[in-house]
């Protein structure tokens, strides 16, 4: 039994629960070895592929990540130089 009685006011999620949730999400990623250690290589390879077609700089790539419970996303933005055909 977690709590006796009923709350007198609508409960917001407690900060301890938030802590637990955050840790569970983070540790699930870390334990699965899914920590983004492959990203530098991924970045190099993406750049390589794009360079076959367009000339771009090394830092024209921007990778963002958001790790969630059900869904993680990887957002890759590549800045293309404005060239005239």
């Amino acid at each position, binding site marked *: 039994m977690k709590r006796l009685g009923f709350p007198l006011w609508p409960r917001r999620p407690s*900060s*301890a629960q*938030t*802590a637990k949730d*955050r840790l569970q*999400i*983070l540790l699930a990623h*870390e334990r699965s070895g899914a*920590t*983004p*250690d492959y*990203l*530098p290589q991924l*970045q190099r390879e993406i750049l390589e592929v794009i360079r076959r077609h367009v000339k771009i700089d*090394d*830092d024209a*790539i*921007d*990778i*963002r*990540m*958001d*790790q*969630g419970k059900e869904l993680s996303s990887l957002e890759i933005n590549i800045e293309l130089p404005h060239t005239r055909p």
Partner: protein
Amino acid sequence: MTSQLKKEKSVSKVIVITSGKGGVGKTTSSAAIGAGLAKRGHKTVVIDFDVGLRNLDMIMGCERRVVYDFINVIQGEAKLKQALIRDKRVDTLYVLPTSQTRDKDALTQEGVEAVLNELREEFDYIICDSPAGIERGAQLAMYFADEAVVVTNPEVSSVRDSDRVLGLLNSKTKRAAEEGAEPIKAQVLLTRYDRARIEKGEMMTVDDVLEILAVPLLGIVPESPAVLKASNVGVPVVLDEPSAASQAYEDAVARLIGEEVEMRVDGERKPGLLRRLFGRSA
């Protein structure tokens, strides 16, 4: 004339938050001081030097957004701007997370210096969150510092370790090695201060600690439930609801940038009449 887009070449300061002992509140203080400076409009970055035991990201609440880290930048695998994480609450606040998978040997003095120099171009304050201990990570966190905040609990092992760290700040840093350089300005931040226990004589007083360490006091942060709560939710204490601890950090930040703020113990409470009549402390 070329227009200066970057910040005007003013004094950018590297401040190390260190302690020797673990668990005294270095990361909490780094996050709070960094956020406090940023809140005042100073462009601030907080760097995690604890390679392999990344935690600053959790305390600052950006753990899900880490892509590249400090080590990637040092090793040339990512650009600095790719690794910097901008805080979602205060837009002058940035975090440079460390690597969770590598070890301290990945830090090199040249690498750290290069990153700090690049950060100096853009930031007003660079806060280095040191790992515990006095080995490589801790030494590199302090090496290039202009100022140091030594986080200390009023407890024997913490005070002893702080004394050791103060010795290192005066001998094993760039400012110590350079002829004619001004020594690092070190100040003590007393954390987990428990007034009730001090009044009972169970805990050393502020004066006791300062007498032993003989450096200026930056602030007194009371033991406060707000600190754990803030870390639970990943919000630096000063960005969370006001508390005695957040107040203490705000004051410390004001002193850090040179303002004169009266030292108050335990938040806003002035000693009450009863306390003044019967209390032990002055």
